[in-house]
């Protein structure tokens, strides 16, 4: 017999997921909220967590994985950095230098979009329109939108990580 393996989802995470149950008439509808809860705690959603989420929601793991893989938002191989910076590349930001800011950030941090720095501090992602176009170019990190970015301000952002 295999020894019992350690759970990925601790009691806090499970309780947070279960708190969503009364909101919806089906368990499957809790998929996206559950993925967000796990991602907030672990910064990724490994396959083992998918299996545990599926058990909580009375689904097959493939159902959860199917939804997860559609979004391209949840990493599965390794956690994203302490800061996950979404740099906008859509039209309003691109017209005001968004692509240059993205290129500069990637160059300075030594990573490509989607990658994490070796010290685990920063992940840079390309974003499609952040809906803050009056402040273009901009990036979203955590709950904060960094507005009207210049190359100098991008450096300040990196130095404050």
């Amino acid at each position, binding site marked *: 017999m295999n020894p019992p393996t350690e759970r990925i989802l601790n009691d806090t995470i499970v309780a947070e997921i279960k708190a969503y149950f009364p*909101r919806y*008439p*089906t368990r*499957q*509808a*809790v*998929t*996206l*909220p559950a*993925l*967000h809860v796990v991602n907030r705690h672990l910064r990724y959603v490994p396959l083992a967590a998918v299996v545990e989420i599926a058990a909580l*929601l009375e689904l097959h793991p493939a*159902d959860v994985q*199917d*939804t997860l893989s*559609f*979004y*391209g*938002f*949840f990493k599965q191989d390794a956690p994203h950095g302490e800061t996950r910076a*979404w740099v906008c*590349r*859509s*039209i*309003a930001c*691109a*017209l*005001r230098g968004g692509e240059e800011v993205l290129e500069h950030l990637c160059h300075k941090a030594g990573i490509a979009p989607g990658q994490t720095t070796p010290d685990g501090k920063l992940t840079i992602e390309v*974003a*499609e*329109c*952040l*809906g*803050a*176009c*009056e*402040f*273009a170019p901009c990036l*979203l990190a*955590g*709950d904060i*939108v960094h507005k009207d970015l210049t190359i100098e301000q991008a450096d300040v952002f990196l130095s404050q990580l």
Partner: protein
Amino acid sequence: MPDFEPVLLANIGKPESHTLKAYEAAGGYRALKQMLKEKTPLDVVELVKSSNLRGRGGAGFPCGLKWSFLPKDHPGPIYMCVNADESEPATFNNRILMEQDPHQMLEGTILGCYATRASTAYIYLRYEYPQALNRLEAAIAECYAQGYLGKNILGTEFSLDIYVHRGAAAYICGEETGLIESLEGKRAWPRIKPPFPAVEGLFRKPTVVNNVETLCCVTHIAARGADWFKSIGVPSDPNNPRDPGSYGPKLYCISGHVNKPGCYELPLGVTCGELIDRHGGGVWKGRKAKAAVPGGISMGLLTAAEFDCPLDFAGPGRYGCLGLGTAAVTVLDETVSIVDFLHNTTRFMAHESCGQCTPCREGTAWALRLLERIKAGKGRLADLDLILEIGDNIGIIPGTTICGLADGAAWPMKNSIRKFREEFEQHIKGTNPGGYMVTEAVRALQVIKVH
């Protein structure tokens, strides 16, 4: 034209505008109390119907009519989904409404649920708006404490719960049936209609999906009446009995190469040029405009000579664009290459295509590869006709896809190339002098990646 007194943005910028206290001090929730006391749900539907309010999310479908499609005497539950998945590039009016005046939207949502007899509403909020999430959660908690939400609202039989449901950065979730699928916990693949959501929507129950700004308009129609709403905007065409007109105030977003990018509330029907010069502060750096997007990139492109286009529901269509869309104007100055513009919009659409319908999934990606090749200096003139052919064959207008995302991808292609063909040809001839006339097929292994 006299200056327009803002209604939807009246509270924006005031101190603590996101709190219940400030909202009630400005007269908030009075309309809700009055409607719940004096009007039946059917009265509210009729009121909104008579106002000719058209949905602000992009398609412009009459809101009251949508509500009246719900089956009568359904045992329930009926659901309301608030579409707060504003992802159309250059659009940010819903964000401002939710961050700075969430109660205005909640009052409209409660009124909408009362009218449609919905007992649960889900606000489908895009991931990129964490500040809106915090403000909405706080505002909903205030409503429960004040008795505007929960069981037996204001002592009536009417009960309602509102929950915020967070998306995960996918444009397609703004399509109403994609939104419903996503809410149900599945991949956000739009559904084939019919059945329409009003008959079979969320959890296979009758469902209404309304945009944030539409519901904010409902609040003011309830407070000021349908006649007030119809005193603003562009009347319906007397020669077209099916034209519901373009009534009411509209939030116009203006971004790109202007001096004062921002969100401005104006009567429907302002011209593109007036919006740019009078409200957006003109084109930046003293330059001239080359073109503008009339309402989110899906709608296509207006050339600088077409800036007399009125931005109402019928206007952009007369200039070869898809429609008003989200009324988000993005200005391109004379230095912008239309090749770059089209590459950017096509990259967006190829990235956001959900992959369900082959014409959209393959068409957008194919057009993107062609544009990457053109940008890399390997373009041929024949590529332009190929992109146009793709554009003419994807979408619900030619009838090859389930939802309108592909139409949104096609219109920038068709408008850019048909209105700026010379610039594309010059670019191709200039960057590929030896090969621009070649027409034989490109081998798959020679695909070029720019980004």
